């Protein structure tokens, strides 16, 4: 049962990826934007425009362009998606796949830490407030869940910079580092293994880098935790309230199960939905952490995508959307499968 469910989900995810690449491809060409003018400038000669159009391949029929992009019936002889490449950037000329693999781990590292911490904070907080409804802790959790769920993370990020960097520094206290990247410019980053700087530095034995990177990640991670813990806490709390009043918990108690066993029954039922929500937020943050990346000048995939969009760099836009969609679909898939194992009702 579970295997059929997984196979079905994988098939749907693949179809969605194909759909997304097609939609993005035609969408950016259908919108009112002129990449050629952006590259050659407004006062360019007709000759220059023609040359640029041809060099970008925009003179060809859209279906032929799609063929070139996909690597099927390509007219240029260059490889496409099917051959495992995302093409070259119109602006920098380098391979998009390479650029994406350089920028993606930065974002992944940021949001992975943030969500792990948020989840670990939210579970006990939400559970304890769900077990003792009406208490002071519960009131706080409730308001927090409502408040933090929708806040301008970019503004809070700025405020944290102001307080923990500017004010602390002015006061002569130990302060957060300036929001200018992942690492002190005097340190060289270790050679990439996983792309996660905190992990790479440990693997390479560079503890100085590990500590410095930790300091630089502290505020951005905190900013995201601040915002995303809200909905998770809210969810855990509501689930816990519901579960504790459920027939099966009451029945488990009436059958004389020990307290810890009953608690485990409750935890099990409350865990699955919170996990799914965390995964959904993860998917959202892949492309939605742009403002935080910008504030702290981290240079992640979000920053890369906005640069591509503002430069009208079509292949780069297509590439980033595809990669981000792919990563989030993989995450959803993993969570769905985990959920199906935890809760057998899903697999139906």
């Amino acid at each position, binding site marked *: 049962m579970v295997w059929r469910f997984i196979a079905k989900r994988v098939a749907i995810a693949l179809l969605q990826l194909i759909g997304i690449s097609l939609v993005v491809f035609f969408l950016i060409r259908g919108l009112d934007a002129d990449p050629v003018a952006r590259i050659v400038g407004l006062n360019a000669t007709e000759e220059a425009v023609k040359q640029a159009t041809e060099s970008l391949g925009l003179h060809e029929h859209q279906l032929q362009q799609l063929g070139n992009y996909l690597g099927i019936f390509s007219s240029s002889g260059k490889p496409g998606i099917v051959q495992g490449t995302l093409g070259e950037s119109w602006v920098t000329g380098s391979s998009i796949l390479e650029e994406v693999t350089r920028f993606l781990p930065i974002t992944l590292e940021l949001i992975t830490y943030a969500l792990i911490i948020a989840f670990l904070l939210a579970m006990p907080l939400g559970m304890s407030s769900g077990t003792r409804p009406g208490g002071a802790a519960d009131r706080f959790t409730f308001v927090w869940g409502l408040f933090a769920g929708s806040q301008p993370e970019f503004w809070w990020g700025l405020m944290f910079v102001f307080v923990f960097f500017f004010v602390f520094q002015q006061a002569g206290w130990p302060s957060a580092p300036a929001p200018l990247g992942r690492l002190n410019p005097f340190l060289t980053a270790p050679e990439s293994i996983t792309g996660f700087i905190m992990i790479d530095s440990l693997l390479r034995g560079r503890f100085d880098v590990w500590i410095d990177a930790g300091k630089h990640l502290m505020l951005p991670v905190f900013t995201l935790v601040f915002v995303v813990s809200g909905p998770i806490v809210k969810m855990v709390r509501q689930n816990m309230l519901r579960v504790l009043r459920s027939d099966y918990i009451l029945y488990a*108690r009436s059958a004389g199960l020990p307290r810890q066993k009953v608690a485990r029954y409750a935890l099990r039922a409350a865990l699955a939905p919170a996990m799914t929500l965390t995964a959904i937020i993860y998917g959202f943050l892949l492309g939605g952490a742009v403002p935080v990346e910008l504030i702290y000048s981290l240079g992640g995939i979000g920053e890369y995508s906005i640069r591509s969009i503002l430069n009208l760099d079509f292949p780069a836009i297509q590439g980033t959307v595809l990669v981000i969609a792919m990563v989030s679909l993989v995450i959803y898939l993993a969570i769905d499968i985990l959920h199906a194992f935890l809760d057998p009702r899903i697999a139906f």
Partner: protein
Amino acid sequence: MVAETNESMVAGSSSENILEVRDLSVRFPIVEGPDVFAVRDFNLAVKPGEFVGLMGEPGCGKSTAAMSFLGLVRPPGVIETGQINFAGDDILKMDEETVRQMRGRDIGMIVQNPRYSLHPMMRVGDQIANVYRAHNDVGKREAWEHAVSMLRMVGINDPERRVKAYAHELSSGMAQRVLIAIALSSQPKLLIADEPTSGLDVTIQAQFLDQMWDSCRQASSAVVLVTQDLGIVANYCDRVVIMHEGTIVEDADVYTFFESPQHEYSRRILQLQREAQEAGDAVLGKIDRTAPPILEVKDMSKLFPIRGSESKVHAVEHADFELRPGECLGLVGESGSGKTTIGRCVLRLVEPTQGEIVFQERNIAEIRPNEFRKFRGDLQIVFQDPLDSLNPRWTVHQVLSEPLKLHTNLSPEEKEQRISELLNLVGLEPSMRFALPREMSAGRQQRASIARAIASNPDFIVLDEPTSALTPETTAEIIQLLMDLSAKLGIAYLFISHDLTTVKYICHRVVVLYLGQIVEVGTKDQVFNQPRHPYSRALLSSHLFPDTANRRVDREVRETLEGEIPSPITENLPKGCYLYGRCPSQVDKCRDLPQELTKLDDGRSVRCWRVAEGDLPDEPAAH
């Protein structure tokens, strides 16, 4: 007997009681409002081995009281005051660990909603094993094996496979048996059963209650049986306790209770039952059997396709019956018998797969759907759940205006007048005109629903279990109303019900259905007093009539059926007689011989070749 006398009785006999509850009050705090006491000044004593029926209307606090005998209340409720003495010790004064050990070992619990009472994400076997391990010092393996043997004990087929199932994979009947397995495994001194058979079919209910009765008598466990069903109380309990608004208002032994109920509530709920006992055709209007039938159903079938599968759900197969003007025809059967589908097909709310539906000499099965809408004014329906069948955002006035707008040409003033008239006909106060469904009681909701059905002056109404969502008290009122309307307006009813008590009261003739087939059709007296088909016999025998004269537990032979009703899917259906495998009178020939509905000399029709050939003795019903 009223509460005060009951209290003195408790005080006098404290030593010999297994359970003694004194002055119990349970409070539910409500934000922005006064707290509510679901149970107050509650006193009850139960002797070892005694079967006590705890009855009361919904919301009287009986479930809360039953749960509190274990020292538990559903959050956010709290036990405010009182003593709950079990075998002489107050469990409210014990430390938590002691009480915990008593729960499930000395006091067993069976609840309603068995499927929701099992953890949805854990295997049934693990849950049984966990309970077993909570009270016995055994390893995981041993507990698991115990679970398998428990399932076998309560008669679940293939326990090795079922033990790995999840709650949603079990039928309610099976889930309920799992709970009884858990509850009985430790032979508790006291078993609390909270409406254990609500939602079960009568034959399954009988199996279940018989099993519970036998096991508890063997282990001499006392039982507190919370129920709304007079039939269950009459047939299984030694004593009856009536609860009203959180407290006990009557406490009597079962024979005394049914002979001379004291409290007003008890008298009201017994009234219908009494009348049903004595009901002959005298109460019912006379039917002109020579008149042309108003409705004739000929060879009607409904098969539902199953997605992604070749097989089909055989909801109705070759149904044939007819109705005369003003007649009430009962359609009885258990779940999966197709009775609801027949009602829907006749009104074309579900399109029949084949067959004719001749209504007032016209085959309405042939009319195009868009044209048929005009006919809907003549054929109406009253649904089972009144709250559910009224648009939650519409007032009674809006609800009643709609059929008038669609099927009449009344002027606005005439419409208002007609609505007042309708309210009056169904006994709704004029003040209910602008009430929303949720602001009315279930009885009033059903009256509004009936008013909607008669608004367009129909000649025929399908009553789809119109009383099964109602309390016994309201049931009596609604049945009376339906009979009055039929007499006044000459409407014919197709009365669909699983409750034989109401059918006995209101119907002229009865159709018995099993697995989509009509197995017996006859007059009410024929079917109720001398049923012929083995299924009709078992159904009537399993039905618990609220009558203490011939209690099921006193009978030597309790006629019933083996196993559960198969789901009516193509490959599940038996090749020959559909009852084969469950029938007490089956012979080998039944397995492969498809059965025909055969007319007998006395005018009734039966689908059983042995009855048709006179193989089976013609004897009165066992009940």
